[in-house]
Structures are given as C-alpha cells and as structure tokens.
C-alpha cells in the first residue's frame, strides 16, 4: 500500500538543507544574545557579548555554504540577486542575507575597533591590515567610544528585526508550501524563530563553557544564570509551539492527519517523538527547571546548564531534520513514504556537513587570536587563581 510518485524517491533536499536552517538559526540566535547587551544593555550578557557577535559573524559567513553546496549550479547562485523573482519566498534570500551580513560586519567593526587600534599601533603585516580595516582613521577617545556604543545600539536595533526575518523567512519558505501538509502551516515562521533563539542561546552557552573549560577560565555566574533562564524560556515557547502544531492537526483529525500520523509512527518515531520531544526537550527542560528553582552547588548547576545547552542544540538540529527530511519522506500522493539515508562521502553527505559545521568554530578560533572575544579580566583570571 506504499505508493510514492515516481520522482519522489529522489530526495532533493538533503543534509545540507538540514544544516542550512540550523546554521542560519544559530546566526539569528547568537545575534539576539549579542543584542541583549548592545541594544538592551543587559549587563549580565557583557562577558559574552563580543563572543556572541563574533559567533554571529562567523556563522553568517558559513551559513550559505551548505546552500551553495546543495545548489545544482552553485556558479549560478548569484542569479538569485540578479533576477530575483519576488513572488517566491526564496527570492529575498540574497538581499536579506547580504543586508544582515553588512549590518553584522558594521557592528563587528565598531565592537572590535578597540582591538584593531591596538593591533594597528604595532608593526608588521597584521598592523597594516588592521589599519586598512580601520580605514586609516586611528583616533580613539572617550567620545569615540561613546559614539561607538550609540551606533552599535542603533545598528543592533535594526538588526533584531532583520535577524528574526533572516531565520523566520526560512521557516516561511517551508510553511508556505501548500503541497506538503507536513510543512504547510503559518506557525512554521514562529516555530523557526523560537527554535533559532533556543539554538543561538544554546550554542553560545555551550561554546562559552567549552572555551572556559579548555582555557581554565572562570565562568561568569551571572551570565550563566541569565543565559540559562532565557534558554529555558525560549525552549518552552519553541517546544510548546511545536507541540501546538502537532496537537492541532491531530485533534482536528483532518484528511492530512491520516497520513501524517503514519509518517510519525512509521518513519519519524525515533527522531520526532523520542528525540525531538522526548529525550532532547523534556530532559533539558527538567535540567533547566532544577537549575532555576533549586539553589545548587555552582559546579553542579553549571554542569546541568551545559548539558541542557548541548541537548537543546541537538534538539534544534533534530527538529530541522524532522522538518526538512520528514516533509520529503511524505509522498504528495498521501499514500506512502519514501526513504532517505544521507551518504557519508557524497557531495551532500555527512562528511561535508561536518566539515561545514566545524569550519566556523575554527575561524572563530582564528578570530580569537586576532581580537579579544572575551573581556580582558576574564582572560586574566584563570580558574586556578580563583581558588
């Protein structure tokens, strides 16, 4: 009784398209973390604000890479900006993306101006590059710093809606496809936005802990608490929306539910029910709940938050998988499912995916060598001395 249209065994959107919304979500989420400090002046986020902004920029550079790898004709990728067809939800991609890229680059320029000035005062090629990036203007004073703060606030203010748009529209791209009942829902935009926030906060939290642990720095507890609370809140909304979507189709018992129920039961049981809602949502929820409600020893509290962040990061990845791949497993004939297993070494396979996902972190490491991603006192105060 399993029937798919004969073209459907070729699953067009692969691991790369799973990776793309994941990375684009990291961009938007990380940007909001940075905006917490630069726009909303939440002092708790100060220790990771620069790190978050740098992460945004690096993820942003690599986010379109999976898309390009996936494109049948990557050389024609520019067509999307040369002849954008604005009836398409995808046509705005080039412009929104480049606009956001320009904006984040500007913010980074203002944020890291101080470091660049430091470098520019030295000698050698690095100093020359720094001077060029600074456009040869090396004046610095309280007044310029205050000006930078204000410009950052304005740019951040513009950036927040752009960040939401950047990722929400990825959700809209799926949600607006009426042919596919697994995707076609107006909630998709909102779900994507909130899952992006979750993944952004999770990746910053996770990475911050990781870097501190490797460098034996002291982690800022206020910052951790703030991160964990936001993470907790956003994950409740995100998972709540995901559940709401599922529940409403299930309860309405529409014609589509027949086949969607089969899709969940037969093809997505592990990744959707067990992982996305079970293990990777419920457990972090409980961990963060415990951390928020109980006064735990600092060490345990940090472990819980770190674990929760890691799991939520995975949860968002699994959610992207369930959306992108799940929707394609479902035949548009509503009479069956195709199957998809990513290859390891192929062009759009797992290996390339891992490489693409690892690259931003490597670049971030290089970035870290060039400018200060964390406050100076942070780096000067290793955990050993704290004891």
């Amino acid at each position: 009784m399993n029937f798919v249209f004969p073209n459907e065994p070729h699953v067009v959107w692969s691991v790369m398209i799973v990776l793309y919304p994941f990375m684009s979500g990291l961009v938007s989420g990380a940007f909001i973390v940075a905006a917490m400090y630069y726009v909303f002046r939440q002092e708790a986020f100060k220790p990771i604000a620069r790190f978050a902004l740098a992460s945004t920029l690096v993820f942003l550079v690599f986010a379109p890479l999976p898309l390009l790898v996936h494109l049948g004709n990557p050389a024609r990728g520019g067509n999307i900006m040369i002849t954008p067809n604005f009836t398409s939800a995808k046509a705005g991609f080039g412009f929104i993306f480049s606009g956001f890229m320009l904006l984040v680059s500007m913010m980074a320029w203002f944020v890291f101006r101080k470091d660049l000035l430091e470098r520019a005062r030295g000698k050698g090629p690095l100093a020359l590059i720094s001077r060029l990036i600074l456009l040869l203007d090396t004046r610095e004073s309280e007044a310029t710093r205050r000006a930078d703060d204000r410009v950052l606030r304005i740019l951040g203010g513009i950036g927040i809606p752009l960040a939401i748009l950047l990722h929400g529209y990825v959700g809209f791209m799926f949600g607006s496809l009426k042919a596919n009942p697994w995707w076609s829902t107006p909630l998709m935009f909102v779900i994507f936005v909130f899952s992006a926030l979750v993944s952004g906060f999770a990746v910053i939290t996770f990475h911050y802990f990781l870097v501190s642990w490797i460098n034996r720095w002291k982690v800022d507890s206020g910052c951790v608490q703030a991160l964990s609370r936001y993470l907790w809140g956003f994950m409740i909304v995100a998972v709540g929306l995901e559940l709401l979507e599922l529940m409403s189709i299930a309860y309405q018992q529409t014609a589509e539910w027949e086949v969607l129920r089969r899709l969940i039961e037969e093809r997505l049981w592990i990744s959707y029910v067990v992982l996305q809602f079970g293990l990777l949502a419920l457990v972090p929820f409980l961990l963060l709940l415990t951390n928020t409600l109980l006064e735990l020893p600092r060490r345990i509290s940090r472990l819980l938050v770190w674990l929760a962040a890691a799991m939520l990061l995975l949860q968002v990845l699994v959610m992207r998988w369930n959306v992108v791949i799940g929707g394609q497993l479902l035949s548009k004939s509503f009479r069956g499912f195709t199957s998809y297993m990513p290859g390891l070494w192929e062009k759009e396979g797992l290996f390339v995916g891992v490489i693409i996902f690892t690259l931003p972190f490597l670049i971030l490491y290089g970035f870290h060598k060039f400018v200060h991603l964390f406050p100076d006192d942070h780096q000067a105060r290793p955990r050993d001395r704290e004891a």
Partner: protein
Amino acid sequence: MKTSSSTGSGRGIFSWLLLAAGVAFVITPFVLANATTSGRVEVSLPMYAGMVLGGLILAGVGLLSGRRTSEDDLRDYRHAYPMLALVGLIIIGVTGARQIFVPPTYGQYGHYRGAAPAEARVRKPRHLGQQQCKECHDDIGKLHDKDAHGRVACETCHGPGHKHKADQNNKLTEPRSQEGCLVCHRRLLARPPAFPQIRVADHYRLVGVKNMKLACVKCHSPHEPLYMDRDLRKARLHPLVHRCRDCHPGRTNRGLQRPKTHPAIFECSYCHKKRVADFASRKHKKLRCSTCHIFVKETPFAGRIVRDTDRRFCLLCHRKASFRSASAAPGIDPKTHMDAPKTACIECHSDAIHGDISAPTREPAQIPRPAPGAPATTAPRPAAMAPRPAAMAPRPAAMAPPAQRPAPRTPTAPAGSMETHP
C-alpha cells in the same frame, strides 16, 4: 574626511561631495526608469531599493560629517563616517552592478529570460509522426489504417524514427516477440474490459496452440491484426474484404503496394464465383447479394456479414398488400399461406435463392494480378506451430473445407437467429 572636520571647521568638500552623490544616487533610478520607457533597460526593484538606500546613507553621512563639531562633544562620530560612506557605496555598487548581469532579454515577455522559449524549441523532434512514415511506407500505412491498429501510431511499436529517417540503415525496432504485443494486450484488471486482451494460457488453449512461447505475429499480422495470417479462424467472422491477404493468401518478400489496375471495390463474385453465377439463374437474380447478406458493423473496425432468415425479413417484400403494383414481388398472406405459419420461408423456397447451400462457397480470388506470380508464394507453416487440427490445413485448402464445416443448419433452426457465413 579628516580634513573636512578635524577641528569642527564646518562643511568641507567631502561632505558636499557625499551629499551631492547621495542625492544623485537617490534620483538616478527614477531618472533611468523615465528615460528608458522604451523598456530596454529594466530598472528592477532591487536597483531602486539599493540606489535609494545607498544614496540616503551617503547623503546622511554627508550631512552628519558637515556638522560643526567641538572638542566638548560627548560623542565623536568622525571615525565612523568613512565606514558608513563605504557601506553606502557597497550597497549602491552591488545593487547597481547586479543589473549588468541581467540577461538582455530578461523581462521581455514576463519575469523570465525572453530568449528561453525559443531555445526550448530548437531541439529536433524524434518521433516523426505517421505522415512522415507513410511518405515512404505508404503500402503498410494503408493496410494499417484500415485495421484495428489503424489509430495506433507507427512509432508506438517501432520507436522514434529520426535515426531511421536520417539513415535507412538504422533499422527501426520490430517488437515481434510475444512480449511486444502483450505490452498492450496482456490481460490486466485495470484495462478497460472492452479492450482486447488475453491471458496467454487461456488464449492458446482456446486456439489449440501448445507452445506457450509462440509469438503472436505467427498468426496475427501486426499491421492487420484482425486478419489471421493462418486460417485459425473458427469461421465466425466474415472477413471484411479490405485486406490484401483476404484474397491473396501467403507471404511475399515484395512490397504490398497496390497495383493501379486493382479494383477499388470488391465484389462478391471475386471469391464466390460459382455461387454468384448460380444465383444469376434463380428467381431473385435482380437483387444484390447485400440485400439479404447484411453487413453488421460491430466495432469501429470489425463487423460481419449475416443473412437474415427470419420470415418477417422475406415478408418485407412478399407480404400481400393492396398498394403493391402488379410488377412487385409475388405477395402472400402469411396467415393463410401455410399450415404451419411459423416456418421460415427459406425452408421451402431455398431454390428461389441459391442451390445447394451446403456446397463450398468460396474459391481463391479470381481477380487480375499486377505481375505474374508476384504475391502468390505461400509460406510454409511455422515449425513452432503445434500440430494443427484438420480444419487448419494450409490456406488454399482451408478456403474450401466442406468436410470440417459444421453441417448446414437444418430448417428447424430457430427462426430469426442470426446465422453467419463462415
């Protein structure tokens, strides 16, 4: 930039330049759009947006940088101006430069490359169509058109003809295997019931063929499938006389082109010579054969010739009526004509029509041949054929197999039954 406002000296040359450039960029797309109403340059939305946004940024930086500043100011933005101006230029540059890459015919007919539809037409067709085939294969074409496969295109079975047309050494495929026919004629539940389809085992058992692998074309000619190449017919259907081999049995290596001298309309006497000659001496000689032997069309492609032996059929002419003239056929009153009024007329009056109706009626055709001995070679029986019942003797004999023919119907046959000629 530094020179323009290092000590708050007011509007410098750069500020003015930026302001002017910004305003110019804001205006440019509108001017362009108006100047090129001929439609040659499409000023697209991104170009509008980019130029205006970039222009506004430039003009804004121009205005800001021209502000009078002093050392007491809380904030000093001067270091940001070059960067902001650069961003404005980048926006203008990118949105403007992308316009260069728009293909020239883009937007000619809609939001697509205008040259594309013409490109889609360039390719040469591969399936050439029946007309093209018939330009050379008119003979087969005419045979084919008349029979059940008349609406099946040549290329349905033979595949696309483009290579064959370019070079006749490229032979077309001839699906002569059993499978080739079964693609369409295998019995499938989903096939419309009216469509002729067989289950090979059943069909072969019915016609007495033991070799289940025997190709369909051993009996059916693919171009004239209703006609049997071997006389396997149980003689139910009178063949529609429109196929060469109805009259010219056997195979030939020559083309089946119809000679110019060939009669266009077939007459019964071509095959039923003795019967027609005999009829000429009977009372009904003024009638045409088809008066009584009516052609009944059963499908668009097939029919049979029946004779109507119902007394009511005879009475159409022979009923006594006051309005009939003296020269009319002799009339009777069916109520008083006979003791047993239900008896068929032909039971007593057959001699008024034909003589011995059990005698063989058909002989090989006696019509002019185009060239001496051209299509008269009779192919040997296929070796694969199962031993054939006596009724399936080689064709010339089968033309007149009186011994195997079912006995002529006795006069007691139910009146009105549609009997068929063999």
